[in-house]
């Protein structure tokens, strides 16, 4: 593999040779440099930025495709509805709760797993592979498996194991869970934590393995306890990896649609904003309202993203400066 020293930025790699029409030459060179970038840039602006501008415009319209005669300018009416409609307010709350719970739980479990996998033991490679597996199940398939094969109250594996375990002690009245109807949001959270923990584990494991070991060994020499080493050396080193994992995870989980759609169909207070918006425009045909809700999601994401960008930027700057 290449060494770290190779990763330096390459400024002025092809500085223009002195010439008469230096200015025009330099301009041509700059454009030659930009040329490979332009197709990707233009494509993205057309496909992602333009639609958002349209969303922004529609969000100020009173537009329901089922009643075409009433289309008109609505001002901030749609935004007021987003923030006052009980269902949509509930969706905002659910989105926040879902994202925070999934990110925190998968970070904590992922950290524990990464710490374990950082040690050498028999079959570590295979254990790592098994742990990655949940992340490599198609999300819709994973949600279906959780709904039908694991959480189903009559023949799901979880209740099956409870029945089996209780029967070992001669009991035929085992406790039976029905998470999907009693705590549906919990069911969504559990299935998402299961899928996202491997992601966090991989990032944190990479962080652990990039730890400078000389300081850890020096601390051991000085008689530091494993806890003290973890608390004062490992954790500070892992901080940016925790942030990175958390924020990348948050970006994906805020947008989650598959699990909510498949597990609960947004019922019983599990509809998050992406699901609510989907319902609003796809079934209720309230285009203006759906767009306003979309803009609210973007504003929320920008808030999170400002932090995300800062973190990614600090890692990135470090790398670019090498």
């Amino acid at each position: 593999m290449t060494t770290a020293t190779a990763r330096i930025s390459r400024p002025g790699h092809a500085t223009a040779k002195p010439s008469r029409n230096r200015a025009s030459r330099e301009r041509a060179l700059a454009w030659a440099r930009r040329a490979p970038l332009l197709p990707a840039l233009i494509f993205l602006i057309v496909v992602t930025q333009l639609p958002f501008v349209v969303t922004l415009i529609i969000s100020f319209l009173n537009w329901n495709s089922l009643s075409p005669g009433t289309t008109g300018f609505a001002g901030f009416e749609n935004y007021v509805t987003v923030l006052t409609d009980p269902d949509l307010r509930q969706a905002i709350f659910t989105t926040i709760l879902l994202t925070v719970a999934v990110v925190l739980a998968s970070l904590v479990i992922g950290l524990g797993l990464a710490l374990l996998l950082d040690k050498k033991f028999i079959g570590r490679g295979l254990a790592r592979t098994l742990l990655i597996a949940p992340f490599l199940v198609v999300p819709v398939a994973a949600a279906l498996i959780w709904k039908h094969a694991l959480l189903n109250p009559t023949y799901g594996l979880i209740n099956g194991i409870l029945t089996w375990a209780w029967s070992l002690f001669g009991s035929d009245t085992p406790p039976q869970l029905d998470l999907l109807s009693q705590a549906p949001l919990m069911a969504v959270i559990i299935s998402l934590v299961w899928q996202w923990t491997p992601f966090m584990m991989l990032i944190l494991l990479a962080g652990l393995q990039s730890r400078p070991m000389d300081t850890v060994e020096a601390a051991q020499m000085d008689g530091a306890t494993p806890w003290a080493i973890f608390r004062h050396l490992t954790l500070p080193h892992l901080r940016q990896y925790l942030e990175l994992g958390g924020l990348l995870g948050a970006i994906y989980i805020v947008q989650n649609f598959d699990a909510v759609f498949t597990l609960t169909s947004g019922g019983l207070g599990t509809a998050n904003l992406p699901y609510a918006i989907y319902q609003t425009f796809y079934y209720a045909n309230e285009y203006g309202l759906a767009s306003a809700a979309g803009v609210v999601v973007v504003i929320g994401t920008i808030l999170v993203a400002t932090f995300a960008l800062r973190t990614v930027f600090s890692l990135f700057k470090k790398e670019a400066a090498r």
Partner: protein
Amino acid sequence: MSTLSPAAARTTSEKSSTPSGTRRRGKSRMDPTRNNTAAGLAAWLLALLFATPVLWMILTSFHSETDAATNPPSVAANLTLDAYKEFFGETSGVSPWPSLINSATASILSTVLVLVLAIPAAYALSIRPVKKWTDVMFFFLSTKMMPVVAAILPLYLFAKTVGALDNIWFLILMYTSMNLPIAVWMMRSFLAEVPVEMLEAAQIDGANLILTLRKVIAPVAMPGIAATALICFIFSWNELLLARVLTGVVAGTAPVFLTGFVSSQGLFLAKVCAAAVVISLPVLFAGFAAQDKLVQGLSLGAVK
């Protein structure tokens, strides 16, 4: 491998330091075998716990519907391929193949498009960087932070107006835009690994652009390109929301097929498991193939 070397170095130093075991505290560190047995055991238990849903899904897919729906579970029931036959439409006559082919088409073609757009862009951001290339990088990333739901309505209305609804090509373009920012970030980090000395040497030797690309850049960047392609393939293959809104009977992808396939009538557990296995297989293969570079890719190149 750059990711493994620190760990390897650490193990050797740990070994060399153990014989001089005169320290009083930090016992666990001094006795790596005992500590590692406990850690290994815990890791294995948790690994099995996390893998159980996957293993259960695979086992159930080979059971008959009656054996799949028992409480307590029939772990040792006879194995059969019935569920797979059912999934492929033996009795219902509804074949999943069109949706699987749509998924493959959308995922592969969008990945090719992503690479065609991302590799030159990454070149202009790492090997011969434009001015303010970091700003461009962050513009790419910021588009990824905009949730799909914030743009989906105009896209849907546009597709409806120009008659591109239920058209696989429109979906391919959407998947390309969805993966392009990630691919640019990944590719930049992989291209940045090409040693400057090698590029300079090639320039001094008078190698032209094509030759430099082929002989200097491609060999170093190839594993990274492969990993980027695999990760983009996975994201496209997994996608549900855009596919659900923008496609229908003709261009519906496998995840869409899967959501519409669970009937409320009769037993269907083994069939659901078989469907989940079939649809997850390409992702499992792609994921394990990219395992070495998965972290670097998923962290957008920020973590090596």
